[in-house]
């Protein structure tokens, strides 16, 4: 673990901010968008976070935090100069090596890992479409970054206060034709379940970034297990074929003791 001072904090929307830190670049040459880090908030907790920015010169990373619980809210509101610990990067990220049109679809703070993956995909010359959904206008984030990747960027809000009025998966249904694209997705599990259904309807392959309660982050504790697959080490990004073989996807997760809990009871 590297303990680092927060260099800069950028507000992304009403509930999310990005913290920038400068880790030793030696640990990051093989980084792939979709991988995550464990962030230690001294005295509070340690939480898994996806990486949303990689700045090359000078090297630094950004972590976009949505305040949803005690740990993330305290992380989000730390002042510049505070020390946090970073372990990682860990896990398996997105495979961006395909040739077809790449549709990035995300819900809420899931945009954090999708925007970085799409920037990388653009660098390697892929044609890109962005579908990014939020609950309402004041939660919209990364619109400028998405816009710089492609003019083919579509924002939706559940309440219609900005962009398309409806679910981001409704946009996806309009966007796809048979076999003409690949999908990468990150967001609420029920959203990704719909993404996978629509993908299979159109014969389009998907990769989804899953989230589970995580303790160790390195494959020891099995807290993040989904049908025998550890999100921290085997994922967090899984292919549609892999997810199809996970009966627990979209249905249940494990609580801190390892007990099976229905996803609908999930309060994080």
């Amino acid at each position: 673990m590297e303990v680092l001072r927060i260099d800069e904090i950028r507000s992304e929307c009403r509930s999310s901010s990005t913290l920038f830190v400068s880790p030793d670049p030696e640990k990051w040459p093989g980084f792939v968008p979709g991988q995550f880090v464990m962030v230690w908030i001294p005295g509070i907790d340690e939480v898994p976070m996806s990486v949303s920015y990689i700045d090359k010169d000078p090297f630094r990373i950004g972590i976009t935090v949505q305040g949803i619980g005690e740990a993330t809210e305290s992380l989000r509101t730390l002042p510049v100069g505070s020390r946090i610990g970073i372990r990682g990067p860990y896990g398996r990220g997105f495979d961006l090596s395909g040739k077809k049109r790449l549709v990035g679809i995300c819900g809420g703070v899931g945009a954090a890992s999708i925007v970085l993956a799409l920037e990388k995909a653009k660098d390697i010359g892929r044609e890109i479409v962005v579908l990014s959904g939020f609950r309402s206008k004041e939660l919209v984030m990364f619109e400028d970054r998405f816009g710089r990747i492609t003019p083919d960027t579509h924002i939706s809000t559940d309440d219609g206060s900005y962009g398309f009025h409806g679910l981001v998966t409704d946009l996806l249904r309009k966007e796809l034709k048979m076999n003409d694209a690949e999908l990468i997705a990150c967001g609420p599990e029920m959203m990704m379940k719909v993404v996978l259904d629509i993908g299979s309807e159109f014969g389009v392959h998907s990769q989804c970034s899953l989230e589970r309660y995580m303790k160790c982050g390195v494959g020891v504790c099995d807290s993040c297990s989904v049908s025998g697959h550890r999100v921290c080490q085997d994922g967090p990004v899984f292919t549609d074929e892999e997810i199809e073989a996970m009966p627990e996807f979209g249905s249940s997760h494990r609580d801190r003791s390892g007990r099976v809990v229905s996803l609908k009871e999930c309060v994080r």
Partner: protein
Amino acid sequence: MAPERSDPTLDVEISGIRFPNPLLLASGIADETGLSMAKAVERGAGGVVTKSLSLDLREGHRNPVVVDLQNGMINAMGLPNPGASHYIREIEEYRRHTSGKNPIIASVFGSTIEGYAECARTIAASGVDAIELNGSCPNAEGLGLEFGQDPDVISDLIKAVRSAVSIPVFFKLTPMCNDIVKLASACQDAGADAVVAINTMKSMKIDIRTGRPVLTNRFGGLSGPAIKPVGVRCTYEIASRLDIPVISVGGISNWEDAVEYIMAGASALQIGTAVAWGNLDVFSRIRSGISGFMRAEGYSSLEEMRGIALEVKRWRS
């Protein structure tokens, strides 16, 4: 041309339980769910040990719960588990997804001797093949280690569990003691079927920037290559003095480590940290490495190789 040698056999038997190979998934590693454990078997493990179970649900310590070091790992999970009766569904799931040839051992702990015995009884009812008593967890106060450092307490604990269940009972030992042979001897005399050596060693990590202990629990258990020489020494000492089988654990990450433990007298091996550092392929990698070594050196069974370091007359030139 010499006839093709047949592959050396890797199967082992410990108190009537047959394992197709001696490499078992250690307790507390990727074993919260039945499917995770089944996956270890699918990828080459000879058997598995469950997460340590208690009668009542435990959430474990708050994060951070691990410190990853260059040559080891410190963990303070704090014995999280859903409780033995709830965990039975995981045993059933494991059975549904494995062929029946790969034994499953339930690791058990409690806060009293009666608690251990009741927990063992509860989980034995699910049809596990053996009980491993965790008398050596260094990161949960009042649980585990307190029952594993006094020969008299060990003896009472094993006797209580013995009379509660009819399956084999193993005892997992701590290396943190004056004389591990005394502890292992208490296990043997009380009727344990095997000892498991060693558990992690109590340790800590302080972050020098903030001056804070990193783990929320402050102390945790050190595992991985850093403790392997201690595990080999403990195995050797027990095997040279006692007849009880030793299941060795501590820093095994390649086939050379495995062979070293077997030569020190190990009957079977458990792998933990290496599963986290590499992946589940570690089982098949070590298995084929052991086979290759046995072929090259002319051993036809593990028995031929077991404990050769213990007797001068078995040393080779």
